[in-house]
């Protein structure tokens, strides 16, 4: 009897203590996929939600069940509210389902808010919300976040989440932006080691695409040297991610282009691979294409002379030749260093420019602080030194080491032969 009673008690306790109350059917929730935040007109913030439309599919029998994932459509809702949580409540006055953020893909904050230094204020309730993952990606939208959220549509598919995930994954393929989360921004805002960055996003309206005009000469742009929304293209997806926003605390103070983002990634050791086009050292009107990878993590040395910090950064890169337009036989061991040195000079020049740019903004986004902190015995001393303010005074030496590993499927370049009259 005693045993039965204790078993019963155990069971009752197990059931009373937990569970049950949290049970929520999947179909009772509205899964928010994108959150957009702008400065509001009728209230402080304008919050935009994007969620899948609750349309029944696959239940019609016959052809209805063929592709249950196909033909998803999405709805957006924009609300002006004093805070994020207020927006949630207001949203539920019109949406018949509980908003659920467990599957949120992007939090998009408009540049307005970022520049006004309202990010910290707005993110405070979001990071405390247990249903929003800390690993949700955070974007800074060039103009209106609401517009970005609305125009972010699946491209070449029907699934917006796959679109979001794969888009962010391209950061590793190109290095033109980075895979940064809510955590990266929120955590860095309070850091004494470095300053936060966030991915720049924009709606590309095709304004930079000039239909008619003089044809381009033999010159060319450095790849990815644009800000988000400025890429000269037509059609394709309406949105793009390119470059980084540089923050000082929670205030956005500057931007890096895609090209600069790559150099930043190289300096931090996050660079996977990317393609570069440099002028042929012997015939500068023609190009040499290189695919560049990081050979190993960069060396960073920091030392102090008095209060003044000195930084030495050495990059180790390696790569393959993708093309040699001039047909000069560079593939020999004697000739390869010519391209290598040319590329090293190019990268060093660009890197110096980028570092100078961040020094002007006084934002250590290169994470030199992580090395510098090792020179201090205590955290108190480090905090008293205030690295983030001293970064602009740092003297930074850079050095680049580049090796060509492979030359593609050709080991011999030969000149293009022309007929008599051209000679």
């Amino acid at each position, binding site marked *: 009897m005693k045993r039965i009673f204790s078993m019963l008690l155990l069971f009752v306790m197990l*059931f009373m203590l937990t569970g*049950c109350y*949290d049970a929520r059917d*999947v179909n009772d929730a509205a899964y928010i996929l994108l959150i957009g935040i702008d400065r509001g007109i009728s209230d402080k913030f304008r919050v935009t939600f994007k969620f*899948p439309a609750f349309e029944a599919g696959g239940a019609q029998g016959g052809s209805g069940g063929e592709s249950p994932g196909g033909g998803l459509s999405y709805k957006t809702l924009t609300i002006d509210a004093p805070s994020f949580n207020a927006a949630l409540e207001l949203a539920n006055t019109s949406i018949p389902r509980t908003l659920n953020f467990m599957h949120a893909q992007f939090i998009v904050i408009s540049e307005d808010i970022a520049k006004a230094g309202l990010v910290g204020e707005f993110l405070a309730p979001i990071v405390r919300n247990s249903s929003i993952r800390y690993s949700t990606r955070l974007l800074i939208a060039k103009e209106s976040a609401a517009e970005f959220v609305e125009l972010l549509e699946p491209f070449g598919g029907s699934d917006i989440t796959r679109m979001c995930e794969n888009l962010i994954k391209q950061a590793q393929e190109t290095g033109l932006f980075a895979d940064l989360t809510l955590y990266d921004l929120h955590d860095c805002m309070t850091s004494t080691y470095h300053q936060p960055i966030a991915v720049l996003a924009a709606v590309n309206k095709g304004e930079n695409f000039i239909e008619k005009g003089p044809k381009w000469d033999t010159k060319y742009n450095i790849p990815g040297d644009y800000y988000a929304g400025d890429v000269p293209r037509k059609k394709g997806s309406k949105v793009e991610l390119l470059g980084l926003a540089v923050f000082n605390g929670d205030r956005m103070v500057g931007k890096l282009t895609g090209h600069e983002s790559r150099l930043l990634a190289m300096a931090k050791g996050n660079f996977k691979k990317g393609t570069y086009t440099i002028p042929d050292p012997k015939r500068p009107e023609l190009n040499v294409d290189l695919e560049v990878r990081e050979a190993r993590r960069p060396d960073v040395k920091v030392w102090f002379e008095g209060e003044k910090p000195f930084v030495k950064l050495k990059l180790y890169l390696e790569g393959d030749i993708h093309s040699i337009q001039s047909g000069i036989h560079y593939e020999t061991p004697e000739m390869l260093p010519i391209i290598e040195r040319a590329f090293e000079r190019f990268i060093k020049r660009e890197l110096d420019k980028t570092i100078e740019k961040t020094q002007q903004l006084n934002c250590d986004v290169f994470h030199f602080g992580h090395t510098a902190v090792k020179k201090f015995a205590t955290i108190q001393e480090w905090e008293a030194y205030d690295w983030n303010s001293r970064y602009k005074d740092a003297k930074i030496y850079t050095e680049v080491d580049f090796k060509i590993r492979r030359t593609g499927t050709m080991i011999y370049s030969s000149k293009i032969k022309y007929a008599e009259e051209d000679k």
Partner: protein
Amino acid sequence: MPNILKAVIDLFTYKPPQKFKAEEYSQDQSQSSENAEGNDSQENTSEEIDWQKILRQADDQQTRENNQVSGSAANTSKQAKDGAASTGRPAVVIRRRNRQKKGAGQGSQGAGIDERDIALIKNGMVAPNIAVNIEYVKQKFSVPKNQDIVIREFNVAKRIKAFLVFVDGMMDKTVINQFVLPQLMDTANFKDFSQEDILDYIIRNVISIYQVSRIKEYSKIIPQILNGVTALFIDGCNEALLIESRGFEKRSIEAPRTENVIRGPQEGFTENLRTNLSLLRKIIKSEKLITEILPVGNKNRINCALVYLDDTADPELVKEVKRRIRNIKYDFVESSGMLEQLLEDNPFMLFPQVISTERPDRAASFIMEGQVVIVCEGSPFVIAVPVTFFHLLHSSEDTMLRWQYGMFIRLTRFLGVLIASLVPGLWMALVQFHSEMIPTPLLLSILKMREAVPFPVVVEVLLMEVAFELIREGGIRVPGLIGQTLGIIGALILGQAAVAAGLVSPILIIIVAITGIGNFVIPNYSLAMAIRIIRFFFIFMGAVLGFYGISVGLTILLALTCSMKSFGVPFLAPFTPKTRRSSDLIVRKPLYKQPVTGNYLDTVSRRSGLYHKRGE
């Protein structure tokens, strides 16, 4: 006191029946003189000294019998030896047949019959007077009301009255017609017959049957008659001759129905005990293979055979199995399925505690591992004890295939168990509590599919699971070919229609289907049933408490399973408690690396370290 204890233990120790034959008479004599009522319950308290004495006498007699050719001489010497205990019956009984003629006409055992006859028949012994016997048999079998029993009266060599008793249909007619009756009736066969024991003469010279035996007590004769043996009573003999004439209709050996293998023998057990035993003997040709036959069932008294390997099986285990079988107090034991329920350690446990198989090769492998196999009359399934969880998941194909393939299919099976028991529960938990764990694209398609479904997930899942159970049960019960059709068509149509009607979401059909398939992977039917039930338990736990509930459920289940024992062997034996592990549990090693017997069975040849072995 120690004497009594020893005697009690001795009484419960089974002795092979051959040894008993010689001493039966004197045992029953002494018994009858002490308690004429035949009160069985008093036996063990009053007889402990007699047992010893009887054994001694039996030994003496046997040696004497070996020396002396004549059975009558042995009988006389035995009588002389017994002296006071027996009632001093003459050895040669032929002489009384003249007097018997006089009493035969009377029909009932009344006046004119020797008092000794009455005393014997009262004690359930064969009386020398044939009229008494015939009357006794008729009353016992309710002849002529009972028309199955045939009592054939005739004269042996035209001189001596005799009769045969058998059950029509249970025996082979040709045996009686060709080898018993003609030879007994033929006077030529009795030319050499002089004043000696007629039964002995018949056994040695007349009947050409491979197996005959002489028995005195009706308590032993009657079950034998019911088994199909023919009993021959001869006037003047206080013993009946049991003639082996069993021959009833039986099914031929067919391929096993429930345990199919691709590679391996395709023979299955049948309902016939002898056939089944011979199938086992065919595989294990060892003189150490012991077959002991015990009757089961208070009223129907079917035979079941204990088969084990003498030098491998744990003697304690054999003893325990026999103790349990002997102590079964149940009127009607029909098959091994019922026997299993009467033998198992814990009737309230969900998991089976014995393993039943239809395959002789599998049963043989159990025997070789040191398990005791119980073959039951009238059932093509034999049961083996003890059993562990891992036995239930093995199939004979595991070892018949090369070890890589065997390991692969075995792992598949373990996966099947996990799927069959957990998937619907996990699905419940996932959808109700942990939607963040579902990949977003999948979640969106689930949303879309479930949009038209009006029920909560629990109802949806239960609806489908119950429907599936119905189809499965219906598929088995529906006769013949329709069964399979019903299963497939039913599942297809029901699933399709349920989705079309918006009752369930398509993804649930997949869940139910994969669970069903997972269940079919389990080789043991009982375990599969258990898992089918456990599935509902996990659905409940998942629906109420999410993953927490699933883990609570698993913990409860594991705790209960850990505490389970099958004939003293813990159910999860080689893992918990941990013993020196046999390699043949989940992962198989190449055959040459793998010993046959498991340590946890505590076989004679190995020590598990779990228990102390006797004599160590």
